[in-house]
């Protein structure tokens, strides 16, 4: 049953993506200055939104774990963080390739990309912390605290980097939000849906894996005891 839901969601995502790609590549007009490469925004931005949504969900799951102590929430938190990290890296990579074309350099310390990089480092640290702790309850508790602190820091990081760039070297932002035509905005949101669906599928797979991994560890301990 669960398998079928996941396959159905993936198919819907694939169909939506195919339809969106057709519109993005063939129907929408080129941007005046940036020509075709501007279309990368339809994946660059939804990846960022998905990543932040995943990190937020991880924080909520962490709070729920600390209040209820159900390990199910811990599994959700680690799954959400990993999936968020994957989409965050995708956002960084598209941003760097896009920037390389537009600015001539792969990394121009753009405020948004720099904030995303620091966020990814934060959550990579979360995953490394989890690897370093063996006891499941201890691991869940410690990583829950880290997840809450990390997400509380995310908006502060975003604003501080933004102010830093505004004061130091105001680099031309690749897209100045609000100066896009409505059909572009509509496509942006429309393309967010398949990306979110994919994230949900990844999350479900990863969460099931975490549960199985815990079962595995429990069996190992029993085997050692025998």
């Amino acid at each position, binding site marked *: 049953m669960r398998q079928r839901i996941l396959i159905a969601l993936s198919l819907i995502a694939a169909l939506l993506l195919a339809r969106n790609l057709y519109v993005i*590549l063939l129907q929408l007009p080129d941007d005046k200055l940036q020509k075709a490469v501007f279309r990368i925004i339809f*994946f660059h931005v939804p990846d960022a939104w998905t990543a932040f949504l995943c990190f937020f969900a991880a924080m909520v799951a962490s709070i729920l774990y600390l209040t209820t102590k159900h390990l199910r929430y811990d599994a959700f938190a680690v799954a959400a963080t990993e999936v968020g990290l*994957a989409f965050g890296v*995708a956002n960084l990579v598209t941003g760097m*390739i896009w920037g390389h074309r537009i600015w001539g350099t792969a990394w121009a310390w753009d405020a948004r990309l720099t904030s995303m990089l620091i966020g990814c480092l934060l959550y990579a640290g979360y995953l490394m912390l989890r690897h370093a702790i063996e006891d499941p309850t201890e691991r869940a508790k410690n990583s829950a605290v880290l997840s809450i602190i990390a997400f509380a820091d995310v908006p502060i990081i975003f604003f501080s980097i933004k102010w830093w760039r505004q004061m130091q070297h105001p680099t031309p932002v690749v897209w100045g939000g609000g100066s896009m035509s409505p059909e572009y905005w509509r496509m942006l949101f429309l393309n967010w849906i398949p990306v979110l669906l994919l994230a949900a599928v990844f999350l479900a797979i990863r969460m099931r894996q975490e549960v199985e991994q815990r079962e595995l560890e429990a069996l190992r301990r029993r085997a050692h005891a025998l």
Partner: protein
Amino acid sequence: MAVRYLLLSFWQVAGECSPEAYARNFWSLFWGLLAAWLVLCAYLVWLVARQNRTRRQLESLRRMLEDKEEKAQS
């Protein structure tokens, strides 16, 4: 039918190795989208590989435990 149309149009767009395509920054778009999807596919592949590994280990552990328990009982 729709799939063939989509493939054809994508091929048509991708087949533009002309200088106009370069001036349109088309190749950067291509590499950018490819890179993003590669990252996500790599993650999916890693997830699936990990899943298979975990399942195999679970199976072998379960069998080993059953054997041990049978021996302990007999």
